[in-house]
C-alpha cells in the first residue's frame, strides 16, 4: 500500500475532471454514432488502444515533462496545426486512458482505488495543457465554451484573415480547394484506420457580420511517424496542412472536442467564400504559407496536393487491403493510442518503441478481441454505459441521458480515510508489433530527417513568438499595449510571411485588416 500522497483537493478536482469527460464523451458518442468499417476491425483496435493508453500514458507523459511542461507544450500547440489539438488533447488523452481503466475494472483486473497517482497525474497533465492551449478563449475544453474553440491569438487570426483569397462556388479556386479537402479528408480516414483523428476543425472566428472563419487541419499525411505510410506517402510533401476557410451567411454554432462542426444554415460548398493554405510543425516558425503568393499559385498548389494525396490514398488502400487482421488491429490501436505522440515530438523525446508498439501488458488481451465481443464491449463502454462499474445510485440523472450511470468510475475518497490503494501501473514494458519496423525517415517543415536529427532539432528550437520575451504577452496585454515597440515587434514576427500584413505591427483592428485585403 502506498502512503497518502494525494490530497482531498486533488481528488475532488480529479473526479470533477473525469466526470466532465464522462458527460462529454457520452454526448460525442451518441451524436456521432458508432464508428464501423468493413475494412478495419475498428472496435477491436479501439479496445486494445485503451489498454495501451492505460498502461503507458502515465510513464510517457512523465518522460515528456522531464523536458518540457504540459503548459509549455500547450503554448507551442497554439502556434501550429500539429496533432495535439482537440481530438487528441481535448478528448482522447483523458478518454482513452480512462476507458482502459474502466474496462479493466469490469474484468476484475483493477479496483477504482488502483493506480490513483497515475490517474491524478494524467488528469492534471491534461488540465495544464488544455488551459494553456485554450488560454485565449479562457476555457478548458470546447465543451466548456459551448462547443467553440478560439485558441489563436489576434496576431495569427489577423494574418489568416488578411491573406485569404476570396472564392465563389464554381470558380477555379473554390473547386480546387473543395476537391483537395474532400481528398485529404478521405486520405485522413484511411491513414487513421477509419478514425477521424487526422482531421481537425477549430474556431469559428468572426471575420465580419456575415462571415466566419474555420481553421481546418489535416495532420500526419506524409512519411513520418506511422510505419504504414513509409514509401506510399513519400510523395506527399507536407506532414501537416492547414486550410483556412471563410464562410458567408453560415454560423458555426458547434465545434466539438472531436474537431467536428455543425452550422446553421447547413455548411455546403456555396457558403465557402475564402481560403488560405499553410503547413506547420514544431520545427516551423508558426504557420508557413503554401502557394499564398498569388491566387494562381494557390490554385496550382491545391491541385498539386490533391494529386499527391489521391495517389497516396490508392497506394495506401492497396497496402492495407493486403494486411492481416493483426496488422490492421495494430495500426488502428497505434493510431488511437499514439494520438498524443506529438507531445513527445515537441519535447524532443520521441521514441518509436514508446509510441508505435503495443505494450506486452495490453497485448495479453488481444485473443479476446473478436469482432462481436469488441463491438459489444465498446458499445457498452461508451454508448449504452451499461457495464456494472458504470451503474450508480438509482436517483442519478446523468447529463444527456438522465440515466443512473457514470462512464468513468470516480476514485473513492475512502483512500484518504485509510482504504488501501495502489499508486501506479508501473513503467513502460516492452512492446510488440505485427507491422514492419518503422523506416528512419521523418517529413518535417525542414525536410526529411532521421529521428535523432528530428529530436535534436526539437530540443534546440523555440518558435520566436514563444521565446521568453514574448510567451506571456497575451491578448489582454496587447489590448492595453498595442502600438508599443514590444507589441509591434511581436506582431511583426507573426506577420513576417504575410502577403498583406508584413511589417504592419499591432495596432490594426479587424476592419483595418479587411481593408488591407484589397
Amino acid at each position, binding site marked *: 500500500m502506498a502512503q497518502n500522497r494525494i490530497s482531498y483537493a486533488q481528488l475532488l478536482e480529479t473526479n470533477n475532471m473525469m466526470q466532465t469527460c464522462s458527460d462529454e464523451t457520452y454526448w460525442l458518442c451518441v451524436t456521432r454514432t458508432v464508428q464501423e468499417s468493413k475494412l478495419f476491425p475498428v472496435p477491436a483496435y479501439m479496445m486494445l488502444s485503451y489498454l495501451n493508453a492505460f498502461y503507458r500514458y502515465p510513464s510517457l507523459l512523465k518522460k515528456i515533462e522531464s523536458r518540457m511542461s504540459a503548459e509549455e507544450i500547450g503554448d507551442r500547440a497554439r502556434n501550429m496545426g500539429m496533432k495535439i489539438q482537440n481530438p487528441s488533447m481535448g478528448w482522447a488523452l483523458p478518454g482513452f486512458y480512462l476507458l482502459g481503466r474502466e474496462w479493466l475494472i469490469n474484468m476484475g483486473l483493477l479496483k477504482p482505488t488502483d493506480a490513483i497517482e497515475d490517474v491524478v497525474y494524467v488528469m492534471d497533465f491534461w488540465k495544464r495543457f488544455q488551459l494553456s492551449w485554450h488560454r485565449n478563449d479562457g476555457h478548458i475544453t470546447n465543451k466548456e465554451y459551448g462547443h467553440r474553440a478560439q485558441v489563436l491569438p489576434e496576431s495569427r487570426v489577423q494574418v489568416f484573415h488578411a491573406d485569404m483569397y476570396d472564392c465563389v462556388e464554381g470558380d477555379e479556386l473554390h473547386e480546387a480547394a473543395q476537391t483537395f479537402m474532400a481528398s485529404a479528408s478521405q486520405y485522413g480516414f484511411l491513414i487513421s484506420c477509419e478514425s477521424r483523428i487526422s482531421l481537425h476543425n477549430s474556431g469559428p472566428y468572426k471575420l465580419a457580420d456575415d462571415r466566419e472563419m474555420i481553421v481546418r487541419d489535416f495532420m500526419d499525411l506524409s512519411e513520418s511517424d506511422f510505419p504504414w505510410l513509409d514509401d506510399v506517402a513519400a510523395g506527399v510533401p507536407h506532414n501537416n496542412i492547414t486550410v483556412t476557410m471563410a464562410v458567408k451567411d453560415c454560423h458555426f454554432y458547434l465545434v466539438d472536442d472531436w474537431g467536428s462542426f455543425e452550422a446553421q444554415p447547413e455548411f455546403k460548398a456555396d457558403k465557402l467564400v475564402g481560403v488560405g493554405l499553410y503547413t506547420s510543425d514544431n520545427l516551423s516558425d508558426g504557420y508557413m504559407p503554401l502557394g499564398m503568393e498569388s491566387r494562381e499559385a494557390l490554385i496550382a498548389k491545391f491541385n498539386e496536393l490533391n494529386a499527391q494525396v489521391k495517389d497516396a490514398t490508392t497506394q495506401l488502400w492497396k497496402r492495407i487491403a493486403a494486411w492481416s487482421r493483426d496488422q490492421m488491429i495494430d495500426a488502428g490501436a497505434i493510431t488511437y493510442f499514439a494520438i498524443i505522440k506529438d507531445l513527445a515530438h515537441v519535447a524532443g523525446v520521441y521514441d518509436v518503441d514508446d509510441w508505435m508498439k503495443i505494450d506486452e501488458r495490453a497485448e495479453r488481451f488481444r485473443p479476446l478481441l473478436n469482432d462481436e465481443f469488441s463491438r459489444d464491449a465498446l458499445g457498452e463502454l461508451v454508448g449504452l454505459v451499461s457495464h456494472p462499474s458504470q*451503474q450508480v445510485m438509482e436517483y442519478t440523472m446523468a447529463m444527456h441521458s438522465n440515466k443512473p450511470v457514470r462512464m468513468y468510475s470516480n476514485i473513492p475518497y475512502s483512500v484518504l480515510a485509510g482504504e488501501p490503494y495502489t499508486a501506479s501501473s508501473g513503467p513502460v514494458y516492452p512492446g510488440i508489433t505485427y507491422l514492419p519496423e518503422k523506416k528512419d525517415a521523418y517529413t518535417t517543415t525542414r525536410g526529411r530527417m532521421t529521428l535523432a536529427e528530428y529530436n535534436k532539432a526539437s530540443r534546440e528550437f523555440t518558435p520566436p513568438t514563444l521565446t521568453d520575451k514574448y510567451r506571456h504577452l497575451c491578448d489582454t496585454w496587447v489590448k492595453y499595449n498595442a502600438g508599443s515597440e514590444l507589441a509591434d515587434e511581436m506582431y511583426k514576427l507573426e506577420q513576417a510571411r504575410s502577403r498583406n500584413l508584413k511589417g504592419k505591427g499591432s495596432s490594426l483592428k479587424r476592419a483595418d485588416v479587411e481593408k488591407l485585403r484589397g
Partner: protein
Amino acid sequence: MAKLYVDNDKFGYQSASPTVEAFHAAIKDIVRRKLDDCGGDWDSFVFDKSYDLITAEDMASVEQMLLDAGHKFDWSAAISPREKPEIYKPAAGVSDEDMATFSFEHPEAKTADADADGRELRGIGDNVAQYPQNCSGTARYIRSPDQVLKYLNEGVPADTIAIIDDSGGTLTAPILEHFKGVICAGGSTRSHLGILTREYGVPCLMNAKISGIRQGDIVEIEVTAKAKTAEAYQTGVEMTANVWRLNKA
C-alpha cells in the same frame, strides 16, 4: 475462492451483452483463481504478479469457452471471417455468386406499390445533403475489399448507386467519388461516409432501411429532402428521404 473488489457492487449486476458478460465472468474467475494461487494479496498482484500470471493463453481460453458451447461470433470487418471462418457466422452477400439473390432486408423498411410515376417505394434513409434534383442510377452492392479492388482496377460502372452497409470512409476510399449516389444501411449523416459524400458532392442517404433492392435494379433516392441534422438525431425528430425502385434488373 478470492473475492474481487467488484464482486460487491450495489448497483452494477452484469453487462448488457451476453457475450460480454460471459467473457467478463470467465476472466474474473481466472483472476480470482490466480489471486488465490499467489496468496491473495491484491496490492502485490495487480501491477506486478498479474502481469505474468494473467496471460494471452488465459484470454484465448475465454473465447474458446464460447466456441465450445457452439457459439459463432458476428463479424464486422471482412478480414475477420476470411482469416478465421471457423469462429464467425457465415459471410453472405459479399461474393459475385451471392449477388444474384442478395438484398438488404430491414424489418422497418417502408415499402409501397408503384405510384403514378411508376416509382415503387423500397425504403427510407437520412439525407446527408440537399440537392436540387433527386438522383437515380443502377444499384450495386459493395460489401468487401475484393469488390472495391475490382472497381479500382476496372473502373466503377457509370451511374452506380452504391449500396453499402458500412458507414465508414475507408472501404470505398479509392472509388467513392466515382459513385453517382450512395445508399448506406448504417450510420448517420455524421458518419464518415456521410461526411465524405457531402465533401465530394455525391448524393447519399445514410441509416437506410430498405428491402428488396437487388443488384442491377434502377433506383432513385430522394436527395431533394432536407438534410438530417445532429439536433434531429439528438431530439429524435424523424427526417427521412425515400428510396424508390424504378425498374427491376
